[in-house]
């Protein structure tokens, strides 16, 4: 992966820069020794590694502001980092950059049940938020599978999803406000506890901007009362086609399940070997359909989904009769990644979204690619919202196998775009899909996105090298190229 070339002038001033940072955050919170830096050399996309020049761990918003102002003055690049669980390399360090870790921002500042909002620091783990309000009967809806570890600040940066986003939305649909520090150190407060903010929707723009527009120092999330009942169906199908049809029919029947997950045969077998979730081994694919809400509603919807499944020739159907059984249905799905990890020394998680009705076709073509590249693939799929996660199994110790895996992964994502989908549903572009952006966007589209980057960070100091395949200078992007001084169409209707 090609990254912007390091600036030797910056590298040669490393000690002076470290000294400047120590004056801001204190001796203990700047790391420059190899052993400490090593812990930051990668995120959860571990195929890419780079030691940062320095790591700094500010303790409050004022320190973040001072660090960013200092770095802008010194012309030093910044890579913000939450818990480092991202899957697209968004927190991949830069050789001449400073990784700013938000781990010390670990407090829940306020839970306002009356307004259904919680104010938290960005380093708080996603699941910790829900746990803190569990006894009061509330939770925070987006639940990425890494929720035990991933930080809410990272969720904002990546606009994280999870298995429940079909019904409850992604991170962006569950935020009310943020405090953010700009590259020059300016502190912005955006949104609050009200539903709609004023002015341009900066909150929406920042969410999912992959740490390139600012550093989030506080987050206000919307919280929801917990649904009284949740029940899941585990449905086996003789083909992916049947399962895909069942998904379409459930939605066409006006049912929006809380979760609707599909796994193909290799994924079923891998997870069953791993955790004995009780999945039907004779099925070509399974669906887990979770319904939540008032008891009477869930009972009725379980009945309706069962009927739809049978009409799609389900080969097996089980309904969870207890909370323990529901959890067991999910156990396999939630173990899919580690289970895949036992089948091969390495696995690579893809993340594209497709229109649901193309599912069977896309899975068939992934099977073809799997044969062509001689790499095994297991598919797990947020079927409700069309978000596909093929897991490519490989061995990085075999020369050339990582490269083959990446090439095959690229082809899968191109396939997603070709059928009318997108490159990434929830993991982000980062460095991983950066060079594929041209598959979805033309140069004009990408330049307009980069102009937004320029409005926030003219010097390209915040997380450069991510998301955009070509870095244009802001001055060049700002130039206006317009010809045509006349209204050149006499035939144009005017009144």
């Amino acid at each position, binding site marked *: 992966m090609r990254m912007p070339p390091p600036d030797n002038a910056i590298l040669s001033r490393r000690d002076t820069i470290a000294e400047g940072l120590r004056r801001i955050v204190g001796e203990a919170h700047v790391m420059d020794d190899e052993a400490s830096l090593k812990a930051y050399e990668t995120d959860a996309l571990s195929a890419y590694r780079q030691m940062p020049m320095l790591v700094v761990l500010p303790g409050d918003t004022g320190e973040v502001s001072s660090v960013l102002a200092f770095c802008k003055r010194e012309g030093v690049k910044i890579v913000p980092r939450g818990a480092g669980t991202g899957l697209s390399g968004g927190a991949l360090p830069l050789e001449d950059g400073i990784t700013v870790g938000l781990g010390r921002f670990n407090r829940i500042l306020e839970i306002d049940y009356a307004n*259904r909002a919680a104010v938290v620091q960005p380093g708080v783990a996603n699941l910790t938020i829900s746990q803190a309000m569990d006894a009061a009967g509330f939770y925070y809806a987006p639940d990425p599978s890494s929720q035990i570890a991933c930080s809410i600040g990272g969720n904002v940066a990546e606009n994280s999803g999870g298995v429940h986003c079909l019904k409850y939305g992604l991170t962006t649909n569950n935020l009310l406000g943020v405090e953010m520090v700009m590259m020059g150190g300016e502190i912005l407060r955006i949104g609050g506890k009200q539903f709609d903010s004023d002015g341009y929707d900066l909150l929406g723009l920042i*969410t999912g901007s992959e740490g390139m527009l600012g550093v989030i120092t506080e987050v206000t999330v919307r919280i929801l009362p917990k649904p009284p009942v949740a029940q899941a169906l585990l449905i086996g199908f003789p083909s992916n086609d049947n399962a895909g049809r069942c998904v379409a029919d459930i939605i066409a029947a006006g049912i929006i399940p809380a979760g609707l997950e599909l796994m193909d045969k290799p994924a079923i077998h891998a997870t069953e070997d791993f955790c004995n979730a009780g999945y039907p081994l004779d099925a070509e694919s399974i669906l887990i359909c979770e319904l939540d809400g*008032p008891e009477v509603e869930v009972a009725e919807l379980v009945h309706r989904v069962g009927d739809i499944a049978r009409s799609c020739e389900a080969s097996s159907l089980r309904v969870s009769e207890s909370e323990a059984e529901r959890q067991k249905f999910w156990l396999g799905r939630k173990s899919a990644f580690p289970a895949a990890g036992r089948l091969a020394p390495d696995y690579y998680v893809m993340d594209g*979204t497709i229109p649901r009705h193309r599912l069977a076709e896309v899975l068939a073509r992934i099977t073809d690619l799997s044969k062509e590249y001689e790499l095994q693939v297991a598919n797990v799929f947020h079927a409700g919202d*069309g978000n596909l996660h093929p897991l490519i199994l490989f061995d990085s110790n075999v020369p050339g196998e990582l490269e083959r895996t990446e090439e095959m992964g690229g082809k899968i994502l191109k396939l997603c775009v070709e059928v009318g989908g997108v*490159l990434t549903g929830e993991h982000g572009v980062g460095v991983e899909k950066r060079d594929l952006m041209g598959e979805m966007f033309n140069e004009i589209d990408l330049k*307009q996105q980069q102009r937004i980057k320029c*409005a926030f960070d003219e010097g390209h100091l915040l997380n450069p090298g991510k998301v955009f395949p070509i870095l244009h200078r802001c001055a060049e992007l700002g130039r206006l190229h317009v010809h*045509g001084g006349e209204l050149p169409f006499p035939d144009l209707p005017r009144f």
Partner: protein
Amino acid sequence: MEETLKPSNVNDLVQIIEWAVAGVHPLEIVGGGSKHALGRRMQTERTLDLSAFSGIKEYQPEELVLTAGAATPLVDIEAVLAEKGQMLAFEPADYGAILGSTLRATLGGAIACNLSGPRRIKAGAARDHLLGFHAVSGRAEAFKSGGKVVKNVTGYDLCKLLAGSWGTLAALHEVSVKVMPSAEKIRTVLICGLDAEGAVVAMNQAMASSHDVSGAAYLPAALAARSGVSYITDVGASVTALRIEGIGLSAEARCSALREIFSPLGYIEELHGKNSHQFWREIRDVMPFAGDSRALWRISLPPTAGARLITRIKETIAAEAFVDWAGGLVWLAVVAGEDASAPVVRELAKAEGGHATLLRAPGDIRAAVPVFQPLAPAIAELSTRLKESFDPTCVLNPGRMYAGV
């Protein structure tokens, strides 16, 4: 009389904006024209009429996505969705009645102004439902963002930025939106006779319950009396309305549960399907203040502050108000006067953590008083830079939101 330019395709649109940029001719963007009286009054030379970009291009109900020309009338879209038992869950508002316009509101207009109805508290705003768009920027460049699938994080989320930008960044000509199944049954529980403070407490209690309330509004007695729903006018007192939607059994069970919770507070009434539909349309379209010459403020604030804000404003000026979004949206009518009492309304809204938009006022007041709550300086500067990045010569709806933007 302003001259109107009416492109019939994207090439025309690009050429018109090229011409506008080259000669710095400011344009007012119009879809259906129903929102002409919204926002700051502009000094534009020409009207850019996008009405040719109309019609549904793609709609597959099981994908929950609809793609249409930005100027497609909302009524047309809603009719097509209804045939398949679906809807725009953000319940786009039509302010025609309060603005005195009979022109048809469009999908692009609802999105560009991020206008959401009562279901916003459950289903999100217009901005949450825009999945992708095609537009031409003030650089006369045709560009796109987002996609036609419900889950997508590829690149910056320009959908959010364009929604609620009031046409100041780009001329939207095609949009893809998320659609949702309509509820099988709709019911409304009415708690009668509460004051605003009691109503806001009750509404937030309902929102915090697991009964999945999809609308929570409060009308004082005088405004309830203006309803076209006889059950509401017959109450003869204030009404606090809680909407329940879902499959039949569930809707009924949740209604009984809410009735039981709130019966100690006052007389309880219930609206069924047809009356519920009409009542919530009245709330959505601000009908209690239709045919009224007063200036109208739309104030967004933390829900529990809604009643307190009304009390504090009424301590200072004569005003009448009703509440939507469980207290999070206050509709406030005041005598237009010279400035629609902007200083008082703005200061008190800000003190409660909210912001006030002057939704209806004569043009001279909208020229003299900021229509949108003034932004903090750092945010204002950033907004100007964002405007420049899309529209450096300020030809698209210049000044519609803020002077210089």
